[in-house]
């Protein structure tokens, strides 16, 4: 083993890198979809729910936003099984990322809903639409358009933070680097390449989501 910077030493592992990147992207895709759906209910509860429900959701949001993701993950992976709920590493990772991301999404969506002028709701109700319909077809689309950029950057931030799931043995992109460096001792090169892959993934995802946003909200995104 010499001390040079030798990328060739890890060139043979491109299949593993792809697999790891796939796991990382799959993890964030599942967690982001779940979080998005749950946070619609959460944000609506904060805005219009009963007082106790509102308090409960706000307490959840504050608790998650003021503790580190890695501790939340350890709590779910090690703590829940001690209560009798057995989890595989990947399930625990999906739950942990979803629980974390949902709290941020509720806070973002809540702000988006608040920014929709009250006249929109009144106009919908005046047209005789049922309140639930007013929410889903009048208020929600505008609320999402208001905060779309914030949602996208939160999802990307969470994808980067999800690198620590490698510590509970989920085979994500970071874990691939752990694996490679344990085989050939090219620690720095392995982590360097993986860092660059994350960088490219984050930049591409941001561009892609901006495109999707332009299509979906045709000029309404601020």
């Amino acid at each position, binding site marked *: 083993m010499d001390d040079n910077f030798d990328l060739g030493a890890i060139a043979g592992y491109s299949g593993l890198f792809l697999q790891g990147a796939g796991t990382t992207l799959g993890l964030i895709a599942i967690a982001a979809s779940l979080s998005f759906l749950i946070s619609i209910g959460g944000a609506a509860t904060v805005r219009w729910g009963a007082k106790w429900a509102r308090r409960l959701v706000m307490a959840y949001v504050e608790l998650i936003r*003021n503790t580190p993701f890695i501790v939340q993950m*350890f709590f779910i992976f090690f703590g829940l099984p*001690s209560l009798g709920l057995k989890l595989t590493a990947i399930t625990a990772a999906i739950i942990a990322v979803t629980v974390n991301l949902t709290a941020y999404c509720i806070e973002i969506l809540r702000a988006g809903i*608040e920014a929709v002028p009250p006249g929109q709701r009144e106009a919908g109700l005046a047209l005789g639409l049922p309140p639930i319909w007013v929410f889903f077809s009048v208020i929600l689309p505008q609320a999402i358009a208001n905060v779309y950029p914030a949602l996208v950057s939160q999802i990307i931030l969470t994808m980067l933070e999800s690198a*620590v799931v490698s510590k509970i043995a989920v085979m994500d992109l970071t874990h691939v680097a752990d694996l490679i460096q344990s085989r050939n001792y090219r620690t720095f090169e392995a982590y360097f390449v993986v860092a660059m892959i994350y*960088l490219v993934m984050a930049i591409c995802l941001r561009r892609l989501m901006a495109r999707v946003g332009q299509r979906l909200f045709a000029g309404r995104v601020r």
Partner: protein
Amino acid sequence: MIELSLTDILSFLLLAARWTVFLSAIAFVGGGVGALLLLLLRYARPRFGGRFMPVYVEFFQDTPFLLQLFLIFFGLPKLGIDVSPLMAATIGLTLYATAYLAEVWRGCVDAIPRGQWDASASLGMNFVQQMRDVILPQALKISIPPTVGFLVQLIKNTAVTSIIGFHELTKAGEIINNATFQPFITYSIVSLIYFAICYPLTHWSRRLERRLTPTGHR
């Protein structure tokens, strides 16, 4: 399995929490100085600094903090510099904080109306005087809420340094958990200590922000 009383666990965790606070404080101050230098470079030498800063910020904002830490912890020894976990954690968090604070403060400086630059220039002020007497005092006021908000993010990120073996709160939780096999209680206490450190800051940041927006916006 070792039997530990709740007071033993609590005191062990609280002692380790001092390192979390200490590390956050150093990185926050170091990051603040770094960000200020980066910003001065950007506005004083737009041709070089204006290009360097976005690249620096992009790298630190678009890669996982865990990998930045690994690159420092395993990269510096390659250059012949031996680093302890504490050194690596301090350097990593400081570089990370520099990127985020520079980006936050850039937004605040850019929010100062163009006329303030023009007016101070027309009074014959040089760059240092403009920055010190006109731009920064105004930018400082609007920068406080997001800066405190970032401090919370920084404190949460110190937890990641447990992975390279730095003995702070999360690492202490791991040690307790390995000794007692009581993960539910251990990580509940760890979470509550983090919450007790972070929540007052979050609350303060929100109050400062509300004070800056005089209309009834929440």
